[in-house]
């Protein structure tokens, strides 16, 4: 029981972190058709900026400034990079963002080196929020949940209650029509791209010290975020949210449950073992299959429901 509740909370924390990254990516992808490989790199930048700023000015300024910096970088990338590359088609855009991944990673390594950064949870938040079944729930995780919930609310209000939100929603499905009604779609694109990068930066700030701030953190996060986007469905923030939470839960639960596929068959009266390939596969513990599960689920989703969980169009 304590494992279940603890894992639920941890899965939620991780899922919200995923959503913070994936929401920006899915908006950018469905609206502009740009598969932004560098999205996770911006997340990494956010963590490094947060580390550097919190060294000089403390965590709260970092929490505010680092995402804004990331948003500004995002706007710059869109205006001076993507918009120019756009005329040459999607392949050019893809290569462009792919190149950015390396530039950002190498750049970080040149400035900060290869070693993990000592970016720590701020002391003010470094205590046990409550104790549950003998295990401590760190206050920082509570703080992460709080920030994520705030972000969720802010995005919701922005998209549903403001005019720019309406324009963004309309441009998700019919960018040409939005333009023909007299709305400046390039500016909307820049806003969305910058907003997405801002969220990625925020995820870096609060995720960097929860996980580890190092130059490979983008590689660890990037693929899983793409899985979330595809699984949740293009053009749907709701689907993206559900997918994030599911992936967060799967990854957390897979680690704590020490079952094998073979154990699932035991109640059916089948016992497995032995030295053959099948026995080998069936006796691999869940914890080792866990990291694979999201990808397997993505493939199944693409095969049987290409538009994703709540998507509005096919991938």
């Amino acid at each position: 029981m304590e494992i279940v509740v603890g894992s639920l909370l941890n899965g939620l924390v991780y899922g919200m972190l995923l959503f913070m990254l994936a929401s920006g990516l899915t908006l950018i992808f469905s609206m502009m058709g740009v598969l932004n490989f560098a999205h996770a790199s911006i997340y990494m930048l956010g963590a490094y900026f947060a580390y550097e700023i919190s060294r000089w000015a403390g965590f709260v300024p970092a929490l505010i400034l680092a995402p804004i910096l990331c948003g500004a970088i995002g706007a710059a990338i869109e205006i001076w990079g993507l918009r120019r590359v756009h005329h040459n088609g999607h392949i050019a855009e893809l290569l462009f963002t792919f190149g950015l991944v390396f530039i950002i990673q190498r750049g970080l390594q040149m400035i900060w080196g290869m070693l993990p950064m000592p970016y720590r949870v701020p002391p003010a938040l470094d205590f046990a929020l409550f104790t549950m079944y003998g295990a401590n729930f760190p206050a920082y995780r509570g703080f992460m949940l709080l920030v994520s919930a705030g972000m969720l609310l802010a995005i919701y209000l922005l998209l549903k209650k403001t005019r720019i939100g309406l324009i963004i929603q309309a441009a998700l499905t019919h960018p040409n029509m939005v333009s023909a009604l007299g709305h400046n779609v390039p500016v909307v694109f820049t806003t969305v791209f910058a907003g997405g990068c801002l969220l990625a930066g925020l995820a870096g700030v609060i995720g960097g010290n929860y996980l580890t701030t190092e130059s490979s953190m983008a590689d660890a996060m990037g693929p899983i975020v793409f899985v979330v986007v595809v699984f949740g469905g293009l053009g749907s923030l709701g689907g993206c949210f559900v997918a994030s939470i599911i992936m967060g839960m799967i990854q957390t639960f897979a680690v704590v449950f020490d079952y094998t596929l073979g154990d699932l068959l035991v109640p059916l009266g089948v016992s497995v073992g032995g030295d053959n390939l099948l026995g080998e596969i069936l006796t691999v513990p869940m914890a080792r299959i866990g990291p694979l599960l999201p990808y397997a689920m993505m493939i199944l989703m693409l095969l049987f429901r290409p538009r994703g969980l709540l998507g509005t169009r096919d991938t």
Partner: protein
Amino acid sequence: MILEVRDLHAFYGQSHILHGVDLTVDEGEIVSLLGRNGVGRSTLCKAIMGLVPPLGSVRYRGKDIAGLRSDLVARAGIGYVPEDRQVFPTLTVRQNLELGLKRAGKFGRWTFDDVFRLFPNLAARQNNPAGVLSGGEQQMLTMCRTLMGDPDLVLIDEPTEGLAPLLVEQVGVLLAEIASRGVAILLVEQKLTIALKISHRLYVMGHGKIVFEGTPEDLSANGDIRREWLEV
């Protein structure tokens, strides 16, 4: 003259769709553009709107607008109603109309009340997602959405396509209402009866060119043109 198109060419990829179109619309005038499917009438609208890159001259009240970004063409004063009724399906009817406004709360000739008075159906469903409306309602919504932006000229592409006779009549009523407010109309239409009834002038297009220009009477009198370019 509100719109003057001279020697307009347009391409979709490699295929040459418009082969030098000449066309004019006067202030407050209703002009119909007739022709069979695939002769380039929709492409002409898109090229004027900047949704397809135009080659040639497009002048709006004397100002060259050829190739401007669509939102700038729209802000110059041209409204566009596409043939495929691009309502924003996830937004409500009212939100769709709101996005027709070029600036929040800035109304011109048309207000929400006008729309809802003309189409009580839309009023009743103003808080429903536009995606669940019937084809006819979506058509009315698309037209009204464009009107909310207060254009002085509207390009309306096949508004009656696939509509039941009663709804075709409603489209006719709306067109008359638009004209009565001094808005010029360039109407792409398949149904000869409507075009002949409401237009001041008509163009017939064939193979990416204008092949006939004249009044409804001229066209009625000219059986050859109708047989060669219109009747199936």
